[in-house]
């Protein structure tokens, strides 16, 4: 199956791992990711203001491109996924907003037709975790891994609809499919401090540490995440267990991590 793929700015720079391993893993699973041509940065955060239009156009263009190819749109970065999915939802539900947006769209209007997936949803709903399990060549036996969702993947739930926002299990199911033990801890859906680390690092530090401590107390030896900013915050603020992208772990389990002939 083919997906339109929106990598996002960070994945082309500081979070290359997140991108490369996502592509390789998808290939193993028989999924083709076609990078959207001339994609533009999603902006990192979605503004909930109804009259904020210009900042959402890059997402709309990506969505529209996917529509023109009749493909669903997938992204790996939590932030990109959140912005694109919320934008799509706004177009579907707020007619005034859709009208404004379409004034910027040449020819064909876009009305929210594209299906938006996060890479994890693609694994669960399209490939299937059973298929992932079947392709695992290096089972991560005995590893105690804590999934860190942060806020952007799950919330607002009325739009994201990925999983139960208070007791998600999509990443835990992936961890199990890769042969490792999933560590469940309450702070896995709490905020790391996000972009506020830019302005008030102390706040980010407090929040990040609360996540790491809670994961460790539950027995975690490693934390996985889908968000470059989460990973940055956790590591910068003193996580003393490894924090890696889930795609890196997936590539390892699928046996394509060391293949560097990109």
């Amino acid at each position, binding site marked *: 199956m083919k997906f339109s793929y929106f990598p996002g700015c960070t994945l082309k720079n*500081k979070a290359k791992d997140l991108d490369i391993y996502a592509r390789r893993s998808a290939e193993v699973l028989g999924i083709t990711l076609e990078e959207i041509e001339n994609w533009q*940065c999603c902006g990192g*955060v979605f503004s909930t203001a109804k009259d904020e239009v210009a900042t959402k156009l890059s997402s709309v263009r990506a969505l529209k491109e996917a529509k023109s190819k009749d493909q669903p749109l997938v992204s790996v970065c939590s932030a990109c996924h959140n912005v694109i999915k919320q934008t799509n939802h706004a177009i579907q539900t707020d007619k005034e907003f859709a009208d404004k947006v379409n004034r910027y769209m040449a020819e064909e209007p876009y009305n929210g037709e594209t299906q938006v997936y996060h890479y994890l949803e693609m694994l669960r709903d399209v490939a299937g975790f059973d298929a992932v399990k079947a392709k695992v060549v290096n089972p991560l036996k005995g590893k105690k891994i804590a999934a860190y969702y942060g806020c952007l993947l799950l919330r607002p739930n009325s739009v994201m609809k990925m999983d139960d926002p208070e007791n998600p299990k999509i990443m835990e199911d992936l961890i199990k499919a890769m042969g490792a033990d999933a560590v469940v801890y309450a702070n896995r859906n709490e905020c790391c401090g996000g972009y506020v680390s830019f302005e008030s690092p102390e706040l980010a530090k407090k929040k990040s540490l609360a996540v790491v401590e809670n994961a460790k107390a539950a027995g975690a030896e490693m934390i996985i995440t889908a968000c470059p900013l989460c990973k940055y915050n956790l590591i910068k603020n003193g996580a003393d267990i490894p924090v890696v992208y889930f795609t890196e772990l997936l590539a390892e389990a699928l046996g394509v991590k060391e293949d560097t002939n990109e």
Partner: protein
Amino acid sequence: MNKEYLRDEMLRMSGVNPKKCMKCGKCSATCPAYDEMEYHPHQFVSMVEKGDIEPLMKSESLYRCLTCFACVDRCPRGVEPAKLIEAVRLSVIRQQGANRLKADDVPAKLDDDMPQQAIVSAFRKYSK
């Protein structure tokens, strides 16, 4: 500024109806940035409802909200306080010269590992 006008503007921008609030305080109970805020999520809701918006506009609290949507998801009445905070914040930075973050300030705040995502997000949140 006229209170009613300001309030209506906030409600229009956010699409929030603060009258749905039953004053349970769960938004503030759930807020990860609570201790950093002068006005807390539940106060945003009640102050906007009363049209008491100017103090909010002057407050640093606007820039402490992490937009984590925890208050939106956990509110039992579907009030969505984060959207009100966003509306007030936007109404401030949309004013001329009110950008909180200027391009020149950025290099000093960077470190080698900081992802692009942090910079663009901060720009979105702090500047117009």
